[in-house]
């Protein structure tokens, strides 16, 4: 009588697994000890490489941090970069462009009789706002000259201010 047993009941080694079911170890059902060993070693190497790199980088950083010349160099480079950035008027750090939904508040027109339209001109330097007159209205100066004074100054040297004696 042939004893009946499940294929995995008496598996004691990789050789038994190969005898019972050839190729079983290759299918991944029962990984061989050699495969397990190599996978464990490779996983250990992967984890260890990152830990070793971080620890070594930290040791170098601590060592460099103890040197005053390094701090002076870092400060000098930082100050140089800051000054170089500030002394670039043609290239501002932040180019302001008017948002499409909320345009910038326009200055009120000096007179209702001057219907002016704001015109936004966008060029490489950012946004520039200028006033342009409507076509139907002739162009008028923004600041018209003041009207001549109808009452000329009547105060003279010999007027009442310096005259103490009653007339």
């Amino acid at each position, binding site marked *: 009588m042939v004893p009946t047993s499940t294929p995995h009941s008496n598996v004691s080694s990789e050789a038994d697994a190969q005898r019972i079911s050839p190729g079983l170890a290759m299918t991944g059902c029962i990984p061989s000890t050699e495969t397990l060993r190599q996978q464990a*070693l490779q996983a*250990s*190497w992967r*984890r*260890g490489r990152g830990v*070793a790199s971080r620890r*070594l980088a930290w*040791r170098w950083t601590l060592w460099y941090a103890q040197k005053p010349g390094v701090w002076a160099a870092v400060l000098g480079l930082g100050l140089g970069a800051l000054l170089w950035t500030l002394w670039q008027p043609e290239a501002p750090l932040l180019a302001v462009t008017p948002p499409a939904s909320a345009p910038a508040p326009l200055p009120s027109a000096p007179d209702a009789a001057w219907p002016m339209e704001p015109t936004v001109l966008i060029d490489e330097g950012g946004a520039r706002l200028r006033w342009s007159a409507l076509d139907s209205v002739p162009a008028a100066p923004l600041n018209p000259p003041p009207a001549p004074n109808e009452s000329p100054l009547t105060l003279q040297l010999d007027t009442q201010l310096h005259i103490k004696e009653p007339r």
Partner: protein
Amino acid sequence: MSTSSPPTTRLIPSDKLGAIGSLIAEGAVFEGDFKSQKDLGIKVDGLLKGGISFEQGGTIHIGPTGVVENTRLEADHILIEGKVVGNVVARKGLEISGSGTLLGDAAYDELIDMHPRAKVRGKIEYRGDMDLNGG
């Protein structure tokens, strides 16, 4: 599956590191001595409180996360990337990487390699022949 290679070493042969068959995994704590009379290898990623001794041959790899305390390590090839508190005897090659720390004495018979950032507090002794009169 992504394959990985053993850490880059200058003294310890890669095939010796790849042939290591015993592993104390990270997070595991092992107390006791590990001894063998065969040319085997062990890698310590966890905590080992005890010694490791190989009467002949042998490769000991202390990983970057490994800590060995109150120990005496003796083997042909010893690679220290973690922390070792105790004495170390390497019959062929002793290598301490930049992430390694050794608090104790070390002795070697043939070769030694220490990274400039390795931390060693102890004596380093060469046990081979030395001509004190000549070069």
